[in-house]
């Protein structure tokens, strides 16, 4: 991994890449998305990702004689959710077909897919400059169709003992294939689309959305100036997609410049270049035929509107909401929250809880993003929102706002809570008492003033060198003294009070 990255940074032509306006880039993509169903597409074996090879395989999954498929309706539902979210026309009647080819990881000798009558057609996903970092203010990527199909087993090649290993756990897992129109005009659009799609499938909870694990697999089609298109198969990460597209565009432009003919073919990406896998003439004849064993899917005419009603708010709507009043979050934080549904729900609860008690919800923004989430990062602990329920954090925020506890004490308390699992679930009030962090509210102003004076005088006498520096003009060194005072009082007294006292005592 590291060596590949090093290579990428050193191959300067990639980072300097620019489309040449004389050579029009045109691209369409195909996405395979593994659906997060409980069971496989046509059998009752559980879906699994990290199980022992060949431990989640039913009779049908490995194509035993005398077995038949049975459609898992959950896969159908997840596919419909996506289709509706992408504004596709749901097909009232759809059906399954067999696509034939021989390979050891293809147990039936064919894949059950939807070639003739897919479940959904003619959708789109709109990209915009505000949220998707593209150049145009908006760009519509049209979706040709969405189809449900089976995954294959997983083949690994062992060069050492010259064997092929096949794991059929993945066989018959549900996939959806999505095909876009060749609408992409530059690489940013491709990147933006893939990211938006990943966020969407995660948000709809139909796929883990990861490219690296193969839950999402991407093929791209590139053509330049209307020449035949070249397909690049199986790109495993966003940077692979970008690099492969850059390489392939450059290769095709060079070919055109050299008057070489571009041929329709399928290529693969090695990590540094694209290589020819097969030409159009060598393409397999898949001998498509309707799978007459499986019944047709007949959906009610209202299915699209029914599903639409049940869908959660879509990521872009949430982004829009979070970046507007009353939330007014910065885009990067809004995006972070949109991509992390649990965190998002927590945030909304916190915001409501703070706002309900007549305080500006913006307090919640700062305390949640910077202080609470920041605290986990600071001590390098995995974020666990359960440690402090949203209404408890709201209590803490309000205690600070009402000056019952200083900001410093509140920070200390957050760190304490994260590191002390026993404190989980204890009310904030109790914890403030437990750790003696409350502001000295029960002291009279006079007593407090005396106490502050005592502390400051003692610090002055113990730090003569610092005092000398301050008197010589290094006024910033006073912060050191304030720091010591804060430490001494565990932050119960605010910094401003100490600052004033030091200035008074030192005649500054």
């Amino acid at each position, binding site marked *: 991994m590291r060596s590949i990255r090093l290579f990428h940074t050193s191959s300067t032509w990639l980072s300097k890449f620019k489309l040449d306006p004389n050579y029009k880039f045109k691209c369409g993509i195909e996405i395979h998305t593994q659906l997060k169903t409980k069971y496989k597409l046509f059998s009752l074996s559980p879906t699994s990702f990290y199980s022992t*090879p*060949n431990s989640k395989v039913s*009779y049908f999954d*490995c*194509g*035993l*004689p*005398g*077995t*038949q*498929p*049975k*459609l898992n309706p959950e896969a159908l539902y997840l596919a419909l959710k996506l289709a509706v979210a992408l504004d596709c026309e749901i097909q009232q009647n759809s059906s399954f077909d*067999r696509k*034939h080819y*021989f*390979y*050891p990881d293809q*147990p*039936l*000798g*064919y894949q059950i897919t939807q070639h003739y009558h897919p479940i959904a057609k003619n959708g789109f996903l709109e990209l915009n400059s505000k949220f998707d970092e593209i150049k145009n203010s908006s760009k519509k990527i049209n979706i040709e169709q969405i189809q449900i199909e089976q995954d294959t087993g997983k083949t690994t090649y062992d060069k050492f003992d*010259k*064997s*092929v*290993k*096949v*794991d*059929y756990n993945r066989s018959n897992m549900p996939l959806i294939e999505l095909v876009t129109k060749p609408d992409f005009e530059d690489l940013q659009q491709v990147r933006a689309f893939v990211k938006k799609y990943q966020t969407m499938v995660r948000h709809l909870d139909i796929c883990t959305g990861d490219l690296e694990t193969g839950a999402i697999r991407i093929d791209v089609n590139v053509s330049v100036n209307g020449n035949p298109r070249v397909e690049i198969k199986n790109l495993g990460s966003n940077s692979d997609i970008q690099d492969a597209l850059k390489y392939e565009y450059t290769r095709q432009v060079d070919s055109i410049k050299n008057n070489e003919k571009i041929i329709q073919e399928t290529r693969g990406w090695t990590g540094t270049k694209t290589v020819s896998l097969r030409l159009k003439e060598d393409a397999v*004849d898949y*001998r*498509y*035929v*309707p799978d*007459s*064993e*499986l*019944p047709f899917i007949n959906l009610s005419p209202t299915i699209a509107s029914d599903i639409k009603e049940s869908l959660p708010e879509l990521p872009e709507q949430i982004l829009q909401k979070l970046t507007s009043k009353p939330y007014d979050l910065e885009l990067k934080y809004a995006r972070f929250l949109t991509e992390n549904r649990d965190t998002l729900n927590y945030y909304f609860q916190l915001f409501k809880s703070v706002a309900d008690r007549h305080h500006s919800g913006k307090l919640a923004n700062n305390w949640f993003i910077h202080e609470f989430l920041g605290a986990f990062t600071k001590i390098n602990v995995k974020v666990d929102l359960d440690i402090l329920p949203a209404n408890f954090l709201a209590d803490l925020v309000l205690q600070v706002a009402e000056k019952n506890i200083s900001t410093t004490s509140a920070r200390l308390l957050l760190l304490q809570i994260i590191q002390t699992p026993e404190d989980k679930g204890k009310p904030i009030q109790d914890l403030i008492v437990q750790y003696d962090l409350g502001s000295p509210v029960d002291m009279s102003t006079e007593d407090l003033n005396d106490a502050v004076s005592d502390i400051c005088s003692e610090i002055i006498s113990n730090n003569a060198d610092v005092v000398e520096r301050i008197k010589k003009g290094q006024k910033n060194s006073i912060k050191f003294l304030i720091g010591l005072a804060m430490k001494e009082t565990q932050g119960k007294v605010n910094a401003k009070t100490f600052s004033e006292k030091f200035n008074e005592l030192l005649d500054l």
Partner: protein
Amino acid sequence: MLRVRIVGRPQKLVPSFCRLVHRASASTSDPWNSLISSRINTNKDTTSAEKNTVTGSSTSCNSSTASTDAASSPAGSLSGTTYIAKDNIVTTHEFSTGASRILSNYRSPFDATVVLLLDAAGSTLLGKSNLDEFGMGSSTTNSHYGTTLNPLYSVEVETGKAHISGGSSGGSAAAVAGKLANFALGTDTGGSVRQPASYCGTVGFKPTYGRISRWGVISYAQTLDTVGIISDDIHTVEKVYHVLDKYDDKDPTSLPDDIRNSLKSKCSEDVNSTSLTVGVPREFVVGDLSQEVKEVWFSVLSQLQDMGHTVKIVSVPSIKQSLSSYYTLATAEAASNLSRYDGVRYGQTTEDLQEKAHDLIVANRTNGFGPEVQRRILLGNYTLSSESGDHYIKATQVREKLVNEFNQVFNLRHVFSNDTNVDKETSGRCDILVAPTAINSAPTLEEYHQQNETNFLNDYVNDILTVPASLAGLPTISIPRGKHGIQIMGQFGADQTVLDVSKKLMEVK
């Protein structure tokens, strides 16, 4: 991890005991040898065949043979009966080969639904019977295990007097004719139960498509494959049918219970009727029919008239195109269904080292399939190839037309039909159709081979009488008349009508 080594497949899914005892009958004077595998040794006497019948058998094999004792059989409508299953129906205790070399070492980890149902009803599986490889043929000569001869005739191959048993369920029909068991299960794709039943002088019943579960039935052509029942005794056929006529949620083509119930209420009126209309489709009067067959046909028709039924000539014009439609669909589906046999996960695999995974598959399939299967896979793949056009769709259209024409002929409305025109004029329509099962009685082995050498299509042409009912999924029975068979066909779902008429006809003989 299951390792598919290019040099071969080290993991044996199939234990090597329980050797098949299918044997080419040409090498022995005893025709039974070629009939049955596994639990039955080469013994004519079924009672002694029950004891320890498998070479090197394990306890698991014995446990089910032991239950052959009527006393230890579970109570049920078939208690004390024995049966034999065509070897394209999978069972756990013996090999399930489809009579193909490619599955000659295959043992299924599960039992077919039909086997479980029969087990629960108290019937005992004695063994598995020979067939044309994967059901492809009408002679039971296309088998990895050799030819099954017809017990009605001499079995002396050398003298040229041996006759074929028909096919593809030839082993099942011959086993019943040879009184090895009370009944046998076959499968009927284009006549594979009815034709061998006719050749062997037994009853052969192909119920409505979707009535009997196909879970555990090795697919040949999945839109046509139907489990059928062969027995000497029509009452046994009926009893077995009632045991197997159940919805199975494992089979996506199994008729759901609501359809079964609505069929039951619709068909009940016909039961025991003495004034049915019997149709004779004129398209079945083909030139090749032998004189003897014609005479048998006429005699059955007059018997029906004597019972009080009305006989009339009807027309189902698409019967003429049904053969080409059938062979287009069946071979295309077969090419697809047999794609899974690559010797990678199970089945025979070559020991020769192969450079590429693809070479391994090519070698396994080339060695594993017999010539007729290879021929049909090629035909089917041609139909499915993008260059051939839309033969599959055209053949499906012919099939739909045929179904509509049958709907015009039958009184009973098709349970899936929403064509309201069908109901307009119902007077003078038929309750059943009657036609011969085969154009002649079983040919001798020599005649059969000679005809096929002249033209291999000859074998296909003989299916003209049985294929229409397969394409339309109609319940059809072949009842014996000497060495011939007569088919009674009913509308989709009218299985009971077909059985009731057959019972009456079996009484008069």
